[in-house]
């Protein structure tokens, strides 16, 4: 009697969470999944049970370009973000008055809204009136003013740079905190063992922060995959689709071309990619979850 009422109470207590997950995560996912298997013409559903959307996607010459751009965006963005974050975090971990101030200041790019960031950078990188291009030109470093967002060869990497500017601060702060929590005695022991600064970093600091490092890598990968406003506002996928990435292309397909079916198929592909990333993360960290986090 008692145990069964306890059980009902337990179910009742988790009901809100289950309902929320069903309504806002499982529901839409199910919707998108079924939609990706439905023929849609001009916004009208015309029959379920077809792989035509995926075939159309595979045949779309744009999709290959989008995949390549997305790879630059996610892999390039994540790797550079974590590397610069690690470098900046290492610097911030040094004890001094300057770094104490910088630790607070560095969060500024992170607290700005996406739209503000995107607009500000769009102006600074503008082909005619952008302050960055004109500074480079007047300094004599370039012959003509570079249009960072208008050059098909530069645009993707320019976006990545802005992305790093925006996402790196939190990575740097998390890694800074991790580095500062490395036991000082271990650092001193390695000094006694004869390690130079690089060896201390490589053999003592990095292994000690490995848990934070993988966590922050996966988290920024997920952030970056989900990032939409920044590239959409800055380039809208242009010029000539050379900066079209998964999130912007899905948006364009669904809300500008109303190809719900193809857009859903792409969302499914995107979801599978993300799940692979997370699975990889859990696999890599399977030991640390059990032991590292506790110690």
């Amino acid at each position, binding site marked *: 009697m008692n145990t069964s009422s306890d059980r009902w109470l337990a179910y009742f207590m988790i009901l809100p969470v289950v309902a929320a997950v069903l309504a806002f995560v499982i529901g839409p996912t199910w919707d998108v999944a079924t939609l990706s298997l439905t023929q849609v013409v001009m916004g009208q559903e015309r029959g379920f049970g077809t792989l035509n959307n995926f075939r159309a996607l595979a045949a779309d010459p744009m999709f290959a370009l989008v995949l390549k751009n997305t790879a630059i965006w996610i892999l390039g963005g994540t790797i550079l973000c974590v590397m610069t974050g690690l470098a900046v975090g290492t610097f911030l971990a040094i004890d001094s008055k300057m770094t104490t101030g910088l630790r607070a200041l560095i969060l500024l790019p992170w607290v700005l809204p996406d739209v503000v960031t995107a607009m500000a950078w769009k102006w600074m990188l503008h082909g005619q009136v952008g302050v960055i291009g004109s500074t480079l030109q007047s300094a004599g470093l370039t012959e003509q003013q570079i249009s960072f967002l208008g050059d098909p060869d530069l645009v993707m990497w320019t976006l990545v740079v802005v992305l790093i500017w925006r996402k790196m601060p939190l990575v740097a702060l998390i890694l800074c905190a991790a580095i500062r929590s490395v036991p000082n*005695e271990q650092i*001193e*022991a390695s000094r006694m063992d*004869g390690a*130079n600064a690089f060896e201390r970093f490589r*053999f003592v600091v990095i292994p000690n922060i490995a848990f934070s490092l993988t966590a922050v890598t996966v988290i920024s990968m997920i952030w970056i995959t989900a990032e939409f406003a920044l590239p959409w506002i800055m380039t809208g996928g242009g010029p000539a689709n050379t900066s079209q990435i998964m999130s912007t292309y899905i948006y364009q397909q669904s809300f500008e071309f109303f190809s719900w079916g193809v857009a859903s198929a792409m969302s499914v592909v995107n979801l599978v990619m993300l799940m692979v990333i997370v699975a990889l993360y859990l696999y890599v960290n399977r030991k640390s979850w059990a032991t590292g986090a506790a*110690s």
Partner: protein
Amino acid sequence: MGSVTLNNIRKSYGAVEVLHGIDLQVEDGEFTVLVGPSGCGKSTLLRAIAGLETISDGEISLDGQVINHLPPKRRDIAMVFQNYALYPHMTVAKNMGFSLRLAKESKAEIDRKVQAAADILDLAPLLERYPKQLSGGQRQRVAMGRAIVRDPEVFLFDEPLSNLDAKLRVQMRSEIKELHQRLRTTTVYVTHDQIEAMTMADKIVVMRGGHVEQTGSPLELYDRPVNVFVAGFIGSPAMNFIEAVVQGGNVLTSDGAMLGPAPESLSDGARVTAGIRPEDIILADSGAEAKVGLIEPTGAETQLTLRMQGASMVMTTRDRITLSPGDAVHIRVAEGKLRLFDIQSEAAIR
């Protein structure tokens, strides 16, 4: 060879000086213990020898060669830390071989030296374990192994036993001492525990407030402390101190009980601090009167707290006694065991 000479070592943090000119000579192969209360500067001094702490003034030399300005790795000194400071991501073998790996020794050579050190410390079956899989005592041994494989001129120990439980501490204490007798490597050992200092040291350095109070062998410090601080710090239970006065060539308590003869240098009416070790108090038929307070038998000996007029003293005896709290007794001080200190300067009067 590994003799360490410290010459007028000073260390300041900003305006605060924590070491006020330390002079110390550690002979080759000697086991020297730095002991003192928290904040006396003993750890700072050890870290200065290690090179982890810079010094503001003075000279540290190893075998006559000044090493102040050398980084830790070029000093040929190994250190065992209080919290072991093992690398958690490395196995015991990797932990011990890390310094050799950094020194770019061959793998075979590293394996050989690690194995040799592991044999000395009974760590051979644990070489492939990680630090978190070891007990406190085993971790402590790995930390020592890490120092041994380098075969340094000097070992430094920074309160290595303070994280162990009482039983293990006693065991590790004798292990460290045996290890030293085997390897004969010069050792500087920091502790705040005077029993550790007494049992392990060839030479004890008692420090207080950034000064060296006294240097000497354990028994020298016990028998001939130079001042009240050293007398009170060395020995457990601690030495009893009571105010006394010289009268007619004798030292008397304030209520006139006789403690012992006064040295000739003291004139009548001189006020002194009398120091008496607990085991030097003897129950007698006559002498100073006291009341038994606490009786604490420990088996081999019994500790008594005695209440005298205006003072309380602790005595220990190996005799089985039949006293109970409240009993009145007479006590006297064993012949030649009374220590006298100047009441102002607290320096010993000989």
